[in-house]
């Protein structure tokens, strides 16, 4: 184990000192991601606003006020719609969310401090957690706005309180004295006369009863975005850039193994007590670590600077790990088959270019003709991109992730064992 770490450590140290390898591992893929991201339509959906369909099923002043409030939200663009049209828009990626004021919203909104709070429906695609949370927060804020208008007084407010008092007195348990008294105070505040039925009662007694009340309840529902389009060009370009980075990195490691053979250091390692498998495993470990490093760096830059936010971080990690495993295997086969540095480079390109071409490494998968997409099934590049995109914008579930990740890991394991077998034979 100690020797294995020493082997891998040596390779990472060599990587750090090899400018060409560093460039093609870290800089080139970033350049590619930025270039393709810009070509594919750059900075995301129009002016970076979230498009929201708003549905007013209640048609009351209160619901109209809510819809207007949503329209005034920061970074949100609203279009009125019916419930079905709105949900359809999300399904087809035309909108990020639907906000619905259902029947009875206005009614509930007029009851203050008791009863079921007014209900707002928020429909979002499950992958859009960030937008959902943002909208939910803003909806809470919007309903507070309604409370504010209430407390600014006026006739409507006084009427509302009157109704509340009447309702409260008529509650099944004979009326909540505390609530009635409180409402009386509210009425005084908004500018009416105190209700006659107000009776004195200890304030503490009522506090407990009205404790669970909330001004509004936002019900979040899920509606699957079926088209699953990327939210920006960068969400397509970064997985592609990562693949190029992986290629550069893996190719560098393949070259380093070939160089070790031609320079004789491999022979020296083989005169040590290490087995051949050890030597290969050390190289594979270093390559694996470097590949994860490339992915971590690129996706961090993507997240921080280009809003490439994975819908699931654990899934992205799973995708990255599987992808790294596949590339370690491919690297191994290339390194073992190549007899010289030149042939390693040539061989790597000969292997990777067609795989990349049909696998969506150059043209995005969704933009390819059907036959090419079918051919892509034989390319680990396709499964790699699918795994990354699945975790970023395709809204994959863990079940969806199993196939691409499983294929990638299988490719890695298969290639590694083939490579190890060939290595044992060629080095005899």
């Amino acid at each position, binding site marked *: 184990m*100690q*020797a294995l770490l*020493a*082997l891998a450590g*040596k390779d990472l*140290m*060599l990587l750090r*000192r*090899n400018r060409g390898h560093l460039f093609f591992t870290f800089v080139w893929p970033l350049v590619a991601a930025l270039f393709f991201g810009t070509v594919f339509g750059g900075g995301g959906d129009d002016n970076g606003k979230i498009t929201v369909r708003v549905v007013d099923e209640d048609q009351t002043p209160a619901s109209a006020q809510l819809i207007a409030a949503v329209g005034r939200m920061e970074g949100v663009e609203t279009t009125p719609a019916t419930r079905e049209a709105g949900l359809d828009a999300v399904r087809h990626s035309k909108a990020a969310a639907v906000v619905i004021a259902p029947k009875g919203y206005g009614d509930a909104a007029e009851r203050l401090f008791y009863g079921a709070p007014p209900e707002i429906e928020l429909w979002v695609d499950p992958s859009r957690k960030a937008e959902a949370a943002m909208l939910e927060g803003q909806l809470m804020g919007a309903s507070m706005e309604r409370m504010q208008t209430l407390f600014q007084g006026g006739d409507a407010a006084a009427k509302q309180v009157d109704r509340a008092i009447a309702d409260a007195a008529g509650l099944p348990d004979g009326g909540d004295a505390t609530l009635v008294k409180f409402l009386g105070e509210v009425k005084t505040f908004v500018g009416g006369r105190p209700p006659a039925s107000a009776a004195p009662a200890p304030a503490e007694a009522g506090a407990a009863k009205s404790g669970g009340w909330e001004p509004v309840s936002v019900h979040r529902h899920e509606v699957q975005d079926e088209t699953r389009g990327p939210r920006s060009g960068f969400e397509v370009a970064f997985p592609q850039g990562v693949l190029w980075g992986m290629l550069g990195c893996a190719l560098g490691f393949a070259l380093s193994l070939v160089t070790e053979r031609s*320079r*004789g*250091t491999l*022979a*020296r*390692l*083989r*005169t*040590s*007590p*290490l*087995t051949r498998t050890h030597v290969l495993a050390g190289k594979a470990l270093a390559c694996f670590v470097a590949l994860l490093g490339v992915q971590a760096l690129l996706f961090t830059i993507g997240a921080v600077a280009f809003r490439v936010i994975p819908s699931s971080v654990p899934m992205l990690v799973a995708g990255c790990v599987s992808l790294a495993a596949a590339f370690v295997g491919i690297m191994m086969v290339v390194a073992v088959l190549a007899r010289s540095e030149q042939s390693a480079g040539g061989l790597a390109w000969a292997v990777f270019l067609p795989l990349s071409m049909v696998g969506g490494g150059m043209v995005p998968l969704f933009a390819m003709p059907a036959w090419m997409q079918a051919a892509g099934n034989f390319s680990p590049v396709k499964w790699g991109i699918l795994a990354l995109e699945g975790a970023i914008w395709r809204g994959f579930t863990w079940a969806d992730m199993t196939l691409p990740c499983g294929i990638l890991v299988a490719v890695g394991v298969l290639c590694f064992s083939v490579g190890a077998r060939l290595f044992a034979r060629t080095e*005899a």
Partner: protein
Amino acid sequence: MLTLSHLRKTYGAHVAVDDLSLHIRAGEVFGLLGPNGAGKSTTVSMAVGLLSPDAGTVDIGGQGAPTQPEVRRLLGVAPQSLAIYEDLSAEENLRFFARMFGLSGAALRTRVDAALALADLQDRRKDAASTFSGGMKRRLNIAAAMVHDPKLLLLDEPTVGVDPQSRNAILERIEAMRAEGRTVIYTTHYMEEAARICDRVAIIDHGKVLAVDTVANLIAAHGGDPLLTVTTSDGPEQIRTRDPVGDLARVAAGRTVLDFRLDRADLEQVFLNLTGRTLRD
């Protein structure tokens, strides 16, 4: 310490090593002497397990073949072509190779320092090997072979491209290793080196061992008589003789001797006599 029995290696139709048997004793410095292409490096590669022989066996220290990882622990190899990481410093190279043999901590530091001292690279220890001269790289190559303190060292042409001063230093270190009880196998085509440091020498050509013995015995057996060169007014004359004084007196009796020289046979002569050609053809 090392027994090679009936080793054979062919490359296509070309026989590189042909039924080669040698027994190297513990504690001796053993020379493999032969011209380019004689099969020295091929023999070394088979001895350390880098090449598998087509026929024959290798045994190291009575523990078996070097294909077993544990047996390789006894070995240190300095290949003919440099086997160091150019992008790593001298110290990093040595630390890395030492760790491959399981060294760590204080033992590792001590051994790395000792190896750096042996290679006379202490003041360049932090410099990348790529900045070294050819001779310095070769010294580092040797240091990497013995950083883990092996019982059996195989040095394949360790003095090629090294200046006379460094060469002398390397030869002294090899003599010091013998004093420590290590076994050293040393391939070269420099006869003077072989004559100076080797306890025994095997003369190899075309993959075959032509003779194995101490240098003195080889010269006695295959060197032939000393060569007397006498220059008279008639010009130079060469005489092979066991009685140089008598022969010189005989020549001097008839003519005026202007100059004379007596050359004792050397390994070069031995090689010429064994193969019919000189070592550096």
